[in-house]
């Protein structure tokens, strides 16, 4: 594909994904050379409608957003979901497990009915997605997005690892958090790698922001969490941080 036109779009999110794109610094200038950015609301006035690649951050959580994302799909040849909110619904899905009428009233009082809000969903609940650049924020400072865009330009399949976080965690020489003197609950065994185990590598544990790996061994993982002292409500809350919709996902 010769110098494709790219549009960036944003739905329910913290907009940190587009910040990652801006943080790609030197590579951003390179990217400007290789693609034509026609729509980037965060950074540009010009709003072109002639994009071929749509890069979308954010979950879908209003009726208006369903219409908008559907229109983007109609125009774009290729859709890339960027970040946890777009790929799995992200933390937005936590609200789905609460009574919607009650939480609306909590935040907006008696006028709650005035506000357009529905259950939060990943964009692939509404439209077909061609590529996923996962993570909260998108992993390894946007490397994965860069790989996807480069692969599209070069007409090849992007290389994206399909293994649990544990594989990359071992490669970082980390002591397993379940084997520490004071174990930490970790979602690494069931979460898709690609982040170089960013969180366990700095003394934390994986919270599953990249979504579940293909064919996760959830039974064994649940057993490990229980052996380490977690009970059902905590385990569910843990899974529901980023993966509340796991049971309906591919």
């Amino acid at each position: 594909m010769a110098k494709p036109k790219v549009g960036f779009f944003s739905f329910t999110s913290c907009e940190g994904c587009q910040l990652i794109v801006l943080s790609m610094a030197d590579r951003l200038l390179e990217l400007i050379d290789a693609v034509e950015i026609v729509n980037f609301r965060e950074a540009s006035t010009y709003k072109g409608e002639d994009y071929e690649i749509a890069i979308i951050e954010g979950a879908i959580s209003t009726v208006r957003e369903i219409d908008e994302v559907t229109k983007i799909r109609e125009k774009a040849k290729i859709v890339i979901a960027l970040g946890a909110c777009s790929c799995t619904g992200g933390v937005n899905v936590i609200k789905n497990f609460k009574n919607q009428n009650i939480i609306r009233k909590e935040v907006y009082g008696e006028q709650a009915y005035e506000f357009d809000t529905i259950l939060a969903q990943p964009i692939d609940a509404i439209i077909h997605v061609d590529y996923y650049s996962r993570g909260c924020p998108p992993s390894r400072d946007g490397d994965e997005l860069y790989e996807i865009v480069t692969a599209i330009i070069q007409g090849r399949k992007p290389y994206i690892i399909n293994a649990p976080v544990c594989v990359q965690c071992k490669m970082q020489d980390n002591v397993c958090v379940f084997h520490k003197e004071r174990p930490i609950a970790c979602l690494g065994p069931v979460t898709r790698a690609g982040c170089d185990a960013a969180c366990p590598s700095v003394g934390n544990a994986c919270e599953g922001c990249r979504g579940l790996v293909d064919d996760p061994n959830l039974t064994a993982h649940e057993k490990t969490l229980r052996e380490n002292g977690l009970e059902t409500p905590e385990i569910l809350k843990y899974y529901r941080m980023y993966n509340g919709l796991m049971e309906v996902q591919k």
Partner: protein
Amino acid sequence: MHMQSFESNVHHITRVEGHGNLVVDVKNGELKEVRLDIVEAPRFFEPMLAGRRFPEAPHLTARICGICSIGHTLASIRAIEDALAIQPTEQTIILRKIALEAEILQSHVLHYYFLAAPDFVGAPSVFPLAISHPEVVKRAVKLKKISDDICREVAGRHPQPVSIQIDGFTNLPKVADIQVLVDRMKEALSQDIPPTLDFFASVSIPAFERKTDYVALTSPDEYAFYSGTLISSETGEISARDYRNKVKEEVVLHSTAKHAKGPFNPYMVGALARFNHNSEQLMPQAKAAAEKLKLKAPNYNPFNITIAQVVESVHNLERMVMLFEGLIKTGLKDERAERGVQGWSTKLPPIKKSWGVGAVEVPRGVLFHEYKIDDDGLIANANCVIPTNQNLANIEEDLRAYVPQILDKSKEEIIFLLEMLVRAYDPCISCSSHLLEVEFVS
């Protein structure tokens, strides 16, 4: 001359962590209505927090805003530490201050270079600017990269920090890496800041003044970002714990962002409010920068928020050099924060029913987090008051005062100036793009 009549609808000009529209209705030279519609999808973070374990709050609330994710993390941690009477070590506080100033530097550089500069040179965005003014973009990228790297070194990552925790850091920077960052900041202060100041000294700031209530944190020890008491130029100084006496959130039907108003009048938070209260405490090069940019406290022109950000960014660099050099001198103690399977360390005091407030200055102004924690360590109740929400009522007041002063200008000029005014508040990064849909009432 015909009397100006138009209705202008500026879609997606401004956002509170999202999308916003500016609506201006002028009939026969008279201003009928000015309104800032916030149409961002509601996020429901406060109910999301309820029932979760308190150590999850910093991680979750960081996701309110990517640009201010360190600020949210720190406001959240400080609210929890206030509730549970946890006193972090001096080293922890210094590292937190560095992370916060790095994030403020990053946000300011993004706003004044990537978002405001294109306006000043008449470009639609930073992308064509890369070709027409490559030196400006290279400087911006260099400054932004410094702040990115400091955040990565201290906080583990940006946006969405990983190593900043309750009661400390799970990972500590290495002295050798800190030294490299100090050298880079010193180089930026001597090579990149002077041309930055030349650039912003040359831009023309629209003439407009409206005195309002300026609200910021203030501290006798330093130009306050991390902690302090809450000062208002109208109602004086109060403890940050009593913030509800100053801040009341109201549901406004045209906005999914709740407007926050002082008990009497709209007020301003952010770089200019901080500068107006605390400019005496700026570091020397930042003070000189203010002088060069002709910014003197008190200043009542909201367009100068951008200029105050330039001054603060110089201060941020000087402060981080100073704090880092202090750490290099004393060496870093290996006092890493622990967390257990429940999410909190056994080193913490007993978890009990408690209440706390964390107030932190983030790029766009003072941010409050308030939590009630129950005996099991679950969050019973949460309240987060975002700077942009606090500024909304004040922006509308500014627009009301400003429109009548510029009605003799063309429709395009009026819209450009009004957008520029809204953008000066830097409501969030994407608000700075501007797509107009203008309808004239004939």
